[in-house]
């Protein structure tokens, strides 16, 4: 089993792959990718039943990124997990590349849904959870929502569906980085108290520091309450890991200069050194 320390190093390697995509494509949704990348790393390296050699294995758990613009985080972790070669990411943003700003299930092994328009992931995840429950093989579904997408009403359609149909094989992680393109989420559209809202719909809720690997693992490994979907409210920091950009709306979509990229890479390499890099070389 991948340890918490190893997961922390993996997440740092994944952050470096996000920078590699920015180097290739020139720009992208950095801030949200780095706020949720710790959760995605824990999912693929510790929680999900998955098989990189057979991405469509029917017995797999499902992960879909409702906040599809954070796709670089998923691409990076999928590459680290062996779904494809990290060098494939060098096509990021290029003409006809599979690796683009929002994920495509028909082009990228391991991607389960074509998200990007916000407010779509939770209803799709509910359908997957219903289908997997009919299969009777214990399949589970995990999805990450951004706090900025919560005003989309379809999320609350999904929230009611999951509770009414007692989808205890469904886990929604809300990546609460408190920022969206126009500023603080509380100023753009106040959705707090988010945990209370999910609880009122009938969900079981867990609140964690979403960049703290120990807390992430504990929450994801908690046994679900029978008959209830689980919402993990993950308080995160936008652009987590790159000190200059952390907690800034400007990091939402980042177009770095060459010098900024070098500085960012240096910071992550220093982080790897401090972690003792338990996971092997950067691919």
């Amino acid at each position, binding site marked *: 089993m991948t340890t918490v320390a190893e997961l922390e190093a993996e997440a740092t390697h994944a952050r470096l792959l996000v920078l590699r995509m920015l180097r290739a494509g020139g720009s992208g949704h950095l801030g949200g990718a780095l706020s949720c990348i710790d959760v995605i790393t824990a999912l693929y390296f510790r929680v999900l039943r998955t098989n990189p050699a057979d991405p469509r294995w029917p017995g797999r758990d*499902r992960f879909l990124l409702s906040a599809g613009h954070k796709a670089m985080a998923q691409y990076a972790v999928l590459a680290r997990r062996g779904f494809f070669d990290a060098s494939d990411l060098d096509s990021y943003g290029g003409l006809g590349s599979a690796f683009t700003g929002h994920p495509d*299930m*028909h082009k990228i092994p391991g991607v*389960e*849904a*074509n998200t*990007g*328009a916000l*407010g*779509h992931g*939770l*209803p*799709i*995840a*509910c*359908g*997957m*959870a*219903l*289908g*997997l429950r*009919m*299969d009777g093989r214990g399949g589970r579904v995990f999805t990450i929502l951004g706090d900025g997408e919560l005003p989309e*009403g*379809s999320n609350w*359609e*999904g929230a*009611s*569906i999951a509770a*009414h*149909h007692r989808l205890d094989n469904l886990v929604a992680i809300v990546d609460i980085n408190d920022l969206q393109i126009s500023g603080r989420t509380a100023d753009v559209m106040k959705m707090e108290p988010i945990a209370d809202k999910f609880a009122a719909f009938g969900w079981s809720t867990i609140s964690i520091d979403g960049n703290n690997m120990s807390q992430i693992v504990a929450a994801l490994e908690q046994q679900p309450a029978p008959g209830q979907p689980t919402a993990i409210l993950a308080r995160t920091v936008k652009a987590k890991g790159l000190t200059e950009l952390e907690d800034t709306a400007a990091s939402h979509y980042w177009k770095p200069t060459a010098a900024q990229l070098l500085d960012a890479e240096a910071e992550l390499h220093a982080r790897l050194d401090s972690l003792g890099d338990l996971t092997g070389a950067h691919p």
Partner: protein
Amino acid sequence: MSAVREFVDPRKTLGQAITAIAEHDERIVVLSADSGNSSGFGPFKERYPDRYFEFGIQEHGTTGVASGLATTGRIPVFAAIAAFVTCRNFEAFRNDIAYMGQNVKVVGRNGGMTYSDLGPTHYSLEDYAIMRMLPGVVVLSPQDAGEIRAASRAMLAHDGPVYMRIGGPLIPDLFPEEPFTIGRGQLIRHGDRATVISTGPVTAATIDAVDSLRASGVAAELIGMPTVEPVDRDLIRDSALRTRRVITVEEHYVRGGLSAATAEAIADLGIPLNAIGLPHQHITTGTYPGLTERYGLDADALTRRLGELLS
């Protein structure tokens, strides 16, 4: 006029057809947005309670669920009022079903202006147009009960997204039931003065109109086109090249639907086309026969209009 016709409920016909097919295909599940019973799926719910899911009045969420279920190998059939499963949920249909290429069947019932007394919020006069704009989506509009049954079988055998529009009021049986091939139209009457192309239940009135004209010496060819997307391009072009005149009839705005699909099919031929359908305005309310008369879609009005066009 045609012989006495038997009238049947299109929604019951749909529900019975899907329920019968579901007996041999366990992948089929039915989704309801408080719309299952009223779309003819009461018998399905009774017979297959574990394959019938209720979501209450929420079409976007239900469309997303349909997509997710399809990713697990189910074949979801989601039926509700046509306006609400095409307009209300359009982005979910576009992204979660069409773009994701999922094997989901959405049925819009009470299409057109059949909810005559309930008004424009409940009309569906742009559904052909918006659905046929989505790549890979088949759009069906069967013309009578046998065709609803046959189209249901074809829809469920087809691997990919399908939108099917049916009506609400009783409709006459027009044809002997035959296998349905998506993308094929049928030659209903031979003629040389014009090619009249019709889709959906308004084909019944169009047959009557074409037959009335024939009695007065004007023989128009009549093609039934129960697949609006993709239309039967070859059949349309072959007939148009013989008659050199095309007229479309549909209970839909005259923009974007069958008329547009037909125009696109013959655009290079230099053959004139007249579109009969609803004017591009918010349509008034009333009784359904009153509306079809007012907007020129009953047999008498169609007879007059075709006569004018072909005089």
